[in-house]
């Protein structure tokens, strides 16, 4: 009797407590729905302020700019159905199609100009304002030394817009796909003020999907936009986007049938997943180690080269990161075509050294004055605190010890923000880094290393290199440009201010009934515009 009473009370109370947690059902029934994990809560859907790759993915679904990127990451007509480029390459004229915003208003050239000026205005303080500095007068406007009127954007009429660049830029069309160049609905911005882009009611979109629900940190729901000019290619009824951060949880949900796409497989499960159908996709980026070329002994190129050659990249790729990455024996990754001859830039450029070349490494180190690693000061590898990086750092630490006899290497782990600051301030000897392409052209990798450049964290510089970068950026002849970029990489890899480790890949997996998803090697990386579900 005593027992019974207590257990009944227990049961009732438990049910009551749990029931109080609220009830909500998600309807499925007959709709074509894909459930995808973004990996994080989107920071904002304000196209001027968004900076991360997850935001890019969403913006690409909800908005459309002058051009839209296809699966080869090439710009295809978007809102602009055609364009003309002047002979000297500095004036671009875009002819827009008739399009509408999701609230019914017409989309005109004025919306583009408004969006662009807003992105580069000093009040907005957009991170990616500099992407638009190719436009004449743009940089001056952002820095406060010029006016908005002096910026080279001209609205010729409702469907024509003309952009004047400072100098010819071969890859400008790719830049037009950047979120900073999306059109923006002025009335919504003015009505929402600071809250623009943070809630469903504070955004008006023009892309293949519209946003119907946004529960922060939890879920976003997208449905097709019926007045999208290319509505017929959109087959989904709904796209559910989750914000799960923990990779192992995402995998658990995928395996339990609660997710349809696996985009961030945890490194620990790679081996098993590869046997279950994990796809290794392309990703235009390089993972590398930075040397601080101002600090001895890293100011000696022989030391840097020795350390590079002693790394066994194949082992790291096979056993540590296990993501099917490609050992990097140069800086610019494969996947960029030279338009002159159709060749891949990397294949043309070749490899600059051999992987795991211990013999040469030891020789170089001895030449540098540190035979068998003796006499070298303590070396510290700086990394941020993600598992994968820490593991790789430890592996490399061992490799330097085994191969070169350097046994006082340590690893310093810092939290992301602190790590970035240390790196920018030069407060490191060797630091882990990665770079993903902003657009498909070798320049996005090459122009990092100009002397004193904002992203040049190796503190290395070379005037010959800088001159070649200028040629690559501004010369309109593709053959000349590409040759200049190859030459630049030659100089760069001869002195190796960095140690390339591997070229990124993009491992992912779909459920067998998911079809038509577009994967891109950079930028938004994934696009569901043509995705659909094949009935099992």
């Amino acid at each position, binding site marked *: 009797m005593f027992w019974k009473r*207590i257990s009944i009370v227990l049961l009732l109370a438990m049910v009551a407590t749990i029931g109080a947690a609220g009830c909500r059902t998600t309807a499925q029934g007959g709709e074509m729905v894909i459930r995808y994990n973004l990996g994080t809560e989107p920071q904002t859907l304000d196209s001027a302020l968004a900076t991360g790759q997850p935001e890019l993915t969403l913006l690409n679904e909800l908005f459309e700019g002058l051009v839209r990127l296809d699966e080869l990451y090439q710009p295809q007509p978007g809102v602009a159905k055609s364009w003309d480029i002047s002979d000297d390459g500095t004036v671009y004229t875009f002819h827009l199609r008739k399009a509408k915003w999701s609230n019914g208003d017409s989309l005109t050239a004025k919306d583009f100009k408004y969006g662009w000026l807003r992105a580069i205005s000093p009040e907005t303080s957009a991170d990616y*304002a500099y992407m638009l500095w190719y436009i004449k007068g743009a940089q001056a406007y952002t820095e406060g030394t010029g006016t908005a009127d002096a910026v080279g954007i001209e609205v010729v009429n409702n469907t024509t817009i003309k952009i004047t660049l400072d100098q010819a830029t071969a890859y400008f069309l790719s830049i037009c796909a950047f979120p900073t160049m999306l059109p923006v609905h002025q009335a919504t911005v003015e009505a929402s003020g600071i809250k623009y882009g943070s809630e469903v009611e*504070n955004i008006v979109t023009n892309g293949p999907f519209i946003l119907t629900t946004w529960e*922060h940190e939890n879920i976003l729901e997208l449905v097709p936009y019926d007045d999208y000019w290319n509505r017929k290619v959109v087959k989904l009824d709904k796209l559910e986007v989750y914000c799960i951060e923990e990779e192992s949880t995402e995998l658990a949900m995928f395996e339990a*049938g609660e997710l349809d796409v696996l985009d961030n497989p945890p490194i620990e499960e790679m081996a098993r997943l590869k046997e279950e159908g994990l796809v290794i996709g392309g990703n235009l980026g390089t993972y590398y180690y930075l040397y601080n070329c101002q600090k001895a002994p890293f100011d000696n190129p022989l030391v840097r080269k020795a350390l590079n050659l002693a790394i066994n990249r194949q082992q790291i790729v096979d056993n540590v990161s296990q993501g099917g990455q490609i050992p990097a024996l140069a800086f610019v990754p494969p996947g960029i075509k030279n338009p002159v001859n159709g060749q891949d830039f990397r294949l043309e450029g070749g490899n600059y050294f051999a992987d795991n070349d211990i013999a040469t490494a030891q020789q170089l180190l001895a030449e540098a004055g540190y035979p068998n690693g003796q006499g070298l000061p303590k070396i510290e590898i700086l990394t941020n605190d993600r598992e994968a990086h820490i593991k790789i750092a430890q592996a490399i630490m061992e490799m330097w010890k085994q191969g070169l006899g350097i046994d006082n290497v340590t690893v310093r782990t810092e939290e992301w*923000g602190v790590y970035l600051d240390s790196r920018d301030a030069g407060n490191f000897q060797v630091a882990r880094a990665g770079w993903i392409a902003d657009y498909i052209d070798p320049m996005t990798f090459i122009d990092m290393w100009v002397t004193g450049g904002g992203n040049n964290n190796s503190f290395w510089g070379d005037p010959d290199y800088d001159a070649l970068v200028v040629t690559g950026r501004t010369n309109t002849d593709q053959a000349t440009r590409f040759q200049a970029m190859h030459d630049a990489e030659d100089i760069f890899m001869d002195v190796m201010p960095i140690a390339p480790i591997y070229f990124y890949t993009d491992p992912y997996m779909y459920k067998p009934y998911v079809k038509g998803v577009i994967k891109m090697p950079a930028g938004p990386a994934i696009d569901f515009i043509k995705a659909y579900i094949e009935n099992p």
Partner: protein
Amino acid sequence: MTRYLIRRLFMTIVALWAIVTITFFLMHAIPGGPFSREKELPAIVIKNLERRYHLDWPMWKQYGYYLWNVCKWDFGPSFKYPSRTVNEIIADGFPVSATLGAVAIGMSLLIGIPIGIVSAFRQYKWQDNITRFVATLGVALPNYVIAAGLIYFVGVKLHWLPVARWGTWDRAIMPAIALAGFPAAFITRLVRSSMLEVLQQDYIRTAKAKGLPGETVLYRHALRNALIPVVTYLGPLIAGIFTGVFVIERMFAIPGLGDAFVNSISNRDYTMILGVTVFYSALLLFMNFLVDVAYVFIDPRIKFLEGED
């Protein structure tokens, strides 16, 4: 009694002020500002951002400005999510965490207390031994280990419950169990030893000698006194759930405040860190205050003890 409560209230406010101050200065001492990015920002953009968030003011001015806003209960905009204010983010995340926490607390009390009582009554018999063993296990495993086990066995293998996220009542079960494991086990042991102690008291013996049935003895005499330590434990219990929530929310992809807080530290989202710290502290302090008030009613001795002070 009111003097006692007023004094407690005063100390709560002082504690809150101390927290705000310590957190403020600690946070600005952390290297790594909120505007560090992988791709370096041009100096002009950084300057504009700093201007917008008043980071270019002298420290004492920032502090004063912040204190004033706290009094107005305005925590400012988030650094990481510029279109949302900290108040909004807290308002979104807190009900979720609170629900999860409440379920977990409810579970631990509803499991711990009855089992502890049973265990005390059947001291050294098999019910007691099993309970003590399981309870001890409960305090021996870190909660993320329990959570990982649950996700794998119950979620992926057996498909009994959805693995993650939030919204329907069945999603609350596994995270609540993972959270409640430790407190439930602790409460079980606590109630057991407290009940044992109470049962040895003279007045219990008297009640039994008078011929009262076992249940009346339990409910009218023993229970109230045995549960006093549980009330004392409520404070640390809530604090413990509160920290466990960081881990559990992340593992089960629950959009609560705990996860937001851990992320805000990585992001150096100053305003968010300060806001959540003040909010949580205020909450905890308030809870402790409530516990104090409850204590006054439950344990009559406290009135006299404090009177001596």
